């Protein structure tokens, strides 16, 4: 289903009670399940307001109402996030989704790691990411709505280990390296100190960065209730360092700064070994996601040379995993 400016303008006028018009509508990204569009709202003589429309095509993520509510809760607790302007309803004729403010800045990881104008931002980003993670993990659970949780498992890490094994079995392609990493992880479950809100995809690539640092955390669709250290490990997983392995925090920073920032806002001193554990598990999860993507091509749901090629990226993920375990 396409989005057209006239339909979107009707929705914007109705929800925001303005007389403006919509300009410059263009699609930014589009997976199979969701789409992101950017546009400008021009209202009278004022400055055009850049906005973002997110549409859910298959109901695979949290659902726009839950995600919008989550963004608002995070924003109330000083997590930098785009401001939700309104949630679409049936009368809009656009599907399920919501409209939020556009936050100006860079999101492409390689540019964030390379751009000269972001050098100062990079130097401060590990501590800043730590502070932000600490704020996410202290958002009161009663404010976040219904999120997937870890029911039936004493330890969220064990739940993830079990889930990765089920996925590996479902695709039927044996991966002894990933199995060894899961076995390694199972024998070393770190202390679990209680469930919190977890962003679920907290990494370089989902940050909007300007010269002043991280301006917004995006892509909350994998948010859940779980072990907060999952977010710290995912941020540091080798797959998300974009070949700058000597900068373990997202390719831009170091553990000490991350954990110092985290302690400032969460009040929690984190054992770096526990972060390393979640890095291993995070990399295994990324490897399994690569397998799933390749099979999306192989099984014909979505034929694509890009998805086919991702299947061969599992080798480098396994190589990274083997460097982390003993």
């Amino acid at each position, binding site marked *: 289903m396409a989005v057209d400016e006239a339909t979107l303008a009707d929705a914007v006028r109705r929800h925001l009670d303005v007389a403006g018009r919509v300009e410059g509508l263009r699609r930014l990204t589009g997976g199979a399940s969701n789409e992101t569009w950017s546009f400008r709202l021009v209202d009278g003589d004022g400055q055009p307001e850049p906005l973002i429309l997110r549409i859910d095509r298959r109901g695979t993520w949290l659902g726009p109402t839950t995600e919008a509510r989550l963004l608002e809760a995070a924003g109330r607790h000083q997590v930098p996030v785009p401001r939700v302007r309104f949630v679409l309803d049936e009368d809009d004729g656009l599907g399920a989704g919501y409209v939020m403010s556009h936050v100006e800045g860079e999101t492409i990881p390689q540019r964030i790691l390379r751009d000269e104008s972001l050098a100062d931002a990079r130097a401060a980003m590990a501590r800043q990411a730590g502070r932000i993670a600490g704020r996410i993990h202290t958002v009161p659970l009663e404010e976040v709505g219904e999120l997937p949780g870890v029911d039936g498992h004493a330890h969220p890490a064990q739940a993830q280990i079990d889930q990765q094994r089920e996925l590996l079995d479902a695709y039927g392609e044996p991966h002894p*390296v990933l199995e060894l990493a899961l076995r390694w992880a199972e024998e070393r479950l770190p202390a679990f100190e209680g469930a919190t809100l977890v962003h679920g995809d907290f990494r370089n690539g989902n940050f909007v960065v300007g010269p002043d640092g991280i301006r917004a955390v995006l892509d909350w669709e994998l948010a859940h209730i779980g072990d907060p250290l999952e977010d710290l490990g995912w941020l540091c997983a080798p797959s998300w360092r974009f070949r700058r392995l000597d900068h373990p925090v997202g390719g831009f920073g170091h553990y000490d700064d991350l954990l110092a920032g985290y302690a400032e806002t969460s009040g929690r001193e984190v054992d770096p070994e526990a972060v390393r554990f979640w890095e291993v598990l995070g990399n295994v999860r990324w490897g399994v996601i690569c397998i799933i993507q390749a099979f999306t091509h192989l099984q014909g749901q979505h034929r694509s040379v890009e998805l086919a090629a991702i299947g061969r990226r599992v080798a480098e993920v396994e*190589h990274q995993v083997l460097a982390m375990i003993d």
Partner: protein
Amino acid sequence: MQDRPTAEELLEAVGEFLEHDVLPLEGRVGFHGRVARNVVDIVRRELAHGPDANARERDGLAQLLGTDPPGDLTTANAELAGSIRDGSLDHRRDEVLAHLRAVTTDKVRIASPREL
């Protein structure tokens, strides 16, 4: 026996086409052209190094699983994966790690050598 170009030479020709005619294109097609060229390079490296790598993997699996060198790598790897998962190879972790490190280095040399 097939006539020339050899398989390697054919892939080389496809790679050159992608490089010169598709990569410079804007947007999605140019991006997928880059992906496709990488895929061609993977297949070229696999043609060159795959047979030796598979032979080494076969020998390693035979030693670990205590069988004759397996004909089918998938079946043997499934057995190895299962034994790792159920803990029955825990007492031989060093051997398992050494085998998997060697196999994975061979895989990466074909799939993404700049990782090494």
